[in-house]
């Protein structure tokens, strides 16, 4: 009897660990998605419903590169992925830059209108992807080193791509933190987002700050897209499946707080992944969402809110 109990305990521990690590992959994807939105929505107050489509674009760039490499230079396959991340960023960044100039800049201070306009944008981008890449799902060929898993002990398998994602997410968070809170450019961004007219009047080129900040958020979504190809296949509507989750992560974290976004992505991903073991995936999702909404009602400002006397 005690023996059975002991084994089941050990199993339970492994299950928890595995689910925990599965949660880490989810955490990494959520975090990468939310990072860009934390800038665009949290700082700029633009409700970018097309954020998911920037992820799609980044993912397609990666898939495209992977096809190019497998067809023309198979030897480069182990190395292409970092290049793909950079390309995904650059393409999404440029696209974001154009969108800011053409659309978003007219809608600052009208957040609900940005929601409607960017919804239109997301329709256009989705259809563009469909026209260019076709409606069917496509996958990137991953380098061998990202496949497989690592087993530190028996019965415990930790997928390497999950670890890679986690590392990527952490690096990006650190980069964004330094960019936003430790650099001169970040100071300009924060000043501009608090008071655009006044920021201009102290000598900040607010138009350029707006453009680059928005494009940066989009570029981060592109990176999330590159990361996304390691766990799923890409279709024109891939990004839109994540948009609600991403907004919930950012809102739950406390829109303007980077630490809040990290905490919130972690909490949501982990609770979902652990609940998934006991319930079906969908029910777990419902439970987590309802839980988050209830917590948001108790604490509408999100997990981490900045306190300033008004």
């Amino acid at each position, binding site marked *: 009897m005690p023996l059975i109990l002991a084994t089941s305990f050990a199993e339970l521990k492994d299950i928890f660990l595995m689910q925990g690590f599965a949660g880490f992959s989810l955490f990494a994807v959520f975090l990468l998605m939310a990072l860009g939105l934390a800038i665009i929505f949290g700082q700029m107050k633009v409700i970018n419903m097309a954020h998911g489509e920037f992820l799609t674009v980044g993912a397609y760039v990666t898939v495209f590169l992977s096809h190019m490499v497998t067809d023309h230079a198979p030897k480069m396959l182990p190395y292409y992925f970092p290049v793909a991340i950079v390309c995904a960023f650059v393409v999404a960044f440029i696209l974001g830059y154009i969108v800011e100039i053409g*659309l978003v800049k007219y809608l600052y201070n009208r*957040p609900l209108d940005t929601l409607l306009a960017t919804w239109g*944008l997301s*329709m256009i981008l989705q259809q563009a992807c469909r026209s260019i890449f076709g409606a069917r799902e496509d996958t990137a060929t991953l380098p061998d080193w990202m496949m497989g898993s690592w087993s530190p002990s028996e019965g415990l398998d930790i997928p390497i791509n999950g670890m890679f994602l986690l590392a990527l997410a952490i690096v990006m968070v650190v980069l964004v933190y330094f960019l936003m809170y430790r650099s001169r450019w970040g100071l300009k961004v924060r000043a501009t987002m608090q008071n655009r007219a006044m920021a201009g009047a102290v000598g900040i080129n607010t138009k350029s700050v707006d453009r680059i900040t928005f494009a940066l958020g989009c570029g981060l979504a592109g990176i999330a897209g590159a990361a996304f190809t390691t766990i799923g296949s890409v279709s024109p509507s891939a990004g839109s499946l994540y948009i609600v989750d991403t907004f*919930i992560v950012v809102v739950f974290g406390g829109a303007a707080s980077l630490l809040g976004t990290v905490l919130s992505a972690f909490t949501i991903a982990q609770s979902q992944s652990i609940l998934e073991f006991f319930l079906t995936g969908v029910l777990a999702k419902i439970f987590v969402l309802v839980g988050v909404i209830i917590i948001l*009602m108790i604490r509408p400002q999100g997990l981490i809110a900045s306190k300033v006397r008004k």
Partner: protein
Amino acid sequence: MHTLYNRALGGKSGTVGLALLCIVLFLVFPLSLDNFRLNMMSKYLSYAFVAVGLVLCWGNGGILSLGQGLFWGFGGYCMAAFLKLEAAHNIAAESGSDQIRALTTVGLPDFMDWNQITSLPYIWYPFKSFPLTIILVFLVPTLLAYIIGTAMFKRRVGGVYFALITQALCWIMEISFVTRQGWTGGINGITDLRTCLGWDIRTKSAQITLYFLTSIFLIACILVGRFILSIKLGRILVAMRDGEDRVRFSGYSVSKLKTFIFCVAAAMSAMGGALFVLNVGFMSPKLVTIEPSIYMVIFCAVGGRNSLIGAVYGAILVSYGKTYFSEMFPNLWYFLMGGVFILVTRFFPDGLAGAVDRFGPMLGKKIFSMIGRAQQNFPAVVPVTIEANEGH
């Protein structure tokens, strides 16, 4: 009588706009459209109920809900549940043969059979009765709106956050309905609805009747909306949109007022959902999820978020455009629709009504009258002096 004229009809110019809408709905469409297109129009009009509700709670009250599909859907599902039970009974009665009896459970909707459910879930019991169903069509969504509204507005969740949370709720509803297949018909929804109290709703005459019924109810909703906007409550809504704190410190319970108007919008949406089911003969979770909910907001934005009548035109135009373009240019219509959204928010924030008001002041005021300030009369007060505006 005079006040009623002013309140419900919006004075002279409001009446003209309403009369024009009536002419379009009751004469132009029935005379010019074939049966198929007219039925399509009924479908569009059932969306317009949501748009009219949104004019009240978003355009005037400043509460943007991205989850109106939730209420529309609950209204629709309630109606569909009743029709489905009736259909199931009819099948059982028609197919007297033992063979079918052996294969299915008598009186149980087909999808329950497919999901190995052998007796009717308790949730479905009320839908055996028509009056109870009608009550539930309104009660369920309104109660839901009341709960959501009370919870959110008491905690002062508003603006963007409210929009995003209602969107998430809408999504939760969709995935729950898809997964509880045995109760809801899953991803296919509730289909194959034929009769309502023995009346075959698929016949040509029934569809025409239902079209007129939908139009009448829609006009009724507009009148209710106008009434609300014309009385004190309407001005408090605008006041709340522009300065919530002041309203609170004038002694009003802002959360209750917001909840109320949110419930009104929900009830209107539910009515639209129920009529949709009667007109179209099915209900599915695909119709109530995030995307349709945003479309409903778009109807309202395109028509003019402040104009009740504009919302109807918005719903008709956008829905028609969607159907037309997806038939004619299946690959292009996403571009076109996306472009329309962008253009409207970018250049016509007041939608069609605003554009008409701006570009055709003579005509516009009459067609799209927003039950404007101008038409309200306050007798026995000091005359207006306009030159007294000093400063800026």
